[in-house]
């Protein structure tokens, strides 16, 4: 492993890419002032600032280096505040390759290593040459595997073969976003604006000016969703499910099977008519490190932005094997308490997994592996008591998927509470061994 011993630097272009928007802004400013014609006196402060920023970037690149040291990845950075990071590869949960827009322009990629746990430490190698990133990732993964199995010597480089399970067609994605809740809202806003514009053009300008911020944010929301889910493909690799997506910012991520806290399937009203659904996975840990993109901060990962139920069932089979086959509806008197929800409510369990369905307008089905259950709560409100009903909440570490067995007969809820806590304990024990 002689070639792995030396310290290595990141790609020389990394400070520029890291600067991101600032770089673009500085470049445009420079170009503008250059194009503005030789008034050098105005140019000097601009140039000075750009120079200082560039110098800082260069210095930070100069003092940052990394190496693979046995079972550790070591990263050293900082000039004044020197930071040395030793990242044990045996703790690695996932290695992701992220390529934001600017990085793609310059042909570089970021390698991001995650560990488990709620503190979720992340090591970033930003940026490496794009063609270097993939082999390095494979090698790190192989090393991590070797460290985990205590083989001492790192395993030879393996080409990780993966099998693509699904790719979402762009047309369907656009259609699905257009009739989703966010999409409908955006359309309503735009339609309203057009209506106002037709009725009185003067008012339209004022309205558009006054509500520019909300309009912009709604459009950003729609755009972000489209960008994130564009050509999202899910592949099965030996180390978990590989997720790739993105129109401008490309991201690749691996979901280890053990990291999944809960899975949910969402079927909005209009999608149900088309037989479409959306599959999202809740992952452990709150990775809120500085410098991570929006997509990485959310604990919820979309595995299937839009797809048929059959496809969703097929994917579910891989994510939560042995899930309950059928769910039972609640007693009829629930109609009095929650008339909108009544048709949706159901729950079921198998030996290792609990499934609950709820929702008023959109149907949300959640699956929680029993070994991931944190605690169970039985809650009964005054109205529920009158009707002899109770709700059992299943709490997990993920915060976005909420599984609750709503409005069941009191006796059934009590039974579910004891059964589930016993099964959850058994599942934990089995996993611990």
């Amino acid at each position: 492993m002689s070639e792995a011993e030396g310290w290595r630097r990141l790609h020389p272009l990394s400070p520029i890419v890291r600067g991101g928007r600032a770089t673009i802004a500085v470049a445009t400013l420079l170009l503008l002032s250059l194009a503005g014609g030789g008034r050098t006196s105005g140019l000097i402060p601009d140039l000075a600032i750009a120079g200082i920023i560039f110098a800082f970037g260069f210095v930070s690149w100069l003092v940052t280096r990394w190496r693979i040291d046995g079972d550790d990845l070591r990263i050293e950075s900082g000039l004044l505040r020197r930071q040395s990071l030793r990242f044990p590869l045996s703790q690695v949960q996932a290695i992701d390759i992220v390529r934001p827009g600017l990085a793609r322009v310059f042909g570089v990629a970021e390698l991001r290593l995650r560990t488990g746990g709620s503190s979720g430490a992340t090591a970033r190698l930003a940026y490496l040459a794009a063609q270097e990133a993939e082999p390095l990732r494979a090698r790190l993964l192989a090393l991590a595997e070797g460290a985990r199995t205590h083989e001492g010597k790192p395993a030879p480089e393996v080409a990780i073969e993966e099998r693509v399970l699904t790719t979402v067609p762009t047309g369907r994605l656009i259609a699905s976003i257009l009739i989703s809740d966010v999409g409908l809202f955006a359309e309503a806003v735009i339609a309203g604006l057009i209506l106002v514009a037709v009725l009185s053009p003067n008012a339209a300008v004022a309205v558009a000016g006054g509500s520019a911020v909300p309009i912009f944010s709604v459009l950003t929301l729609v755009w972000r969703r489209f960008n994130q889910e564009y050509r999202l493909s899910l592949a099965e690799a030996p180390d978990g499910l590989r997720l790739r997506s993105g129109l401008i910012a490309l991201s690749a991520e691996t979901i280890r099977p053990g990291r999944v806290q809960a899975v949910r399937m969402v079927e909005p009203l209009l999608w149900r008519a088309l037989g479409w659904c959306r599959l999202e996975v809740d992952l452990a840990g709150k990775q809120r490190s500085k410098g991570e993109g929006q997509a990485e901060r959310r604990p919820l990962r979309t595995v299937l932005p839009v797809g048929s139920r059959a496809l969703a069932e097929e994917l579910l089979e891989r994510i939560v094997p042995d899930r309950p086959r059928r769910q039972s509806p609640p007693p009829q008197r629930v109609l009095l308490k929650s008339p909108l929800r009544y048709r949706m409510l159901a729950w079921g369990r198998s030996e290792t997994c609990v499934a609950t369905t709820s929702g008023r307008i959109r149907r949300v089905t959640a699956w929680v592996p029993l070994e991931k259950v944190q605690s169970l709560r039985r809650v009964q409100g005054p109205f529920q008591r009158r009707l002899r009903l109770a709700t059992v909440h299943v709490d997990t570490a993920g915060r976005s998927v909420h599984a609750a067995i709503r409005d069941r007969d009191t006796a059934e809820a009590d039974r579910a509470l004891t059964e589930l806590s016993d099964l959850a304990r058994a599942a934990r024990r089995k996993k611990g061994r």
Partner: protein
Amino acid sequence: MLRRLEVAAIALAALIAAGVVALLGHTIVGLACLGGALVLGLGAERFVARRFYAWGYAEREDDLLVRRGLLFSRLSVVPYGRMQFIDVTAGPLERSFRLATVRMHTAAAASDARIPGLDREEAARLRDRLAEVGEAQAAGL
């Protein structure tokens, strides 16, 4: 227990205020206030007392049960193995009665296992015991 005292104190203050008003000469208004304060205070006291009796906890072999609430009754089952850390807090009012609140945290934010108004010794005992069994049964995420 604590809430009960709080309510009693407020009711007493209201009573005294009403009494003062009555003494100042507005006899009818004052008497009405007095009666109102008495009824409300007793009602609140009864409500809080019943709520106090609804709190309860049980240490089982593998998990802790915490029961609370009357109007909205809740029963939490928290496995010891899932416990991440335990808080023992005592506010100024609690401290003056030598009481403390024990709270268990799991990785789930929604888990709600709070036991208020414990004796200080009991709180310390519970904390140590929970920490001990938690250690023995700890399970990863």
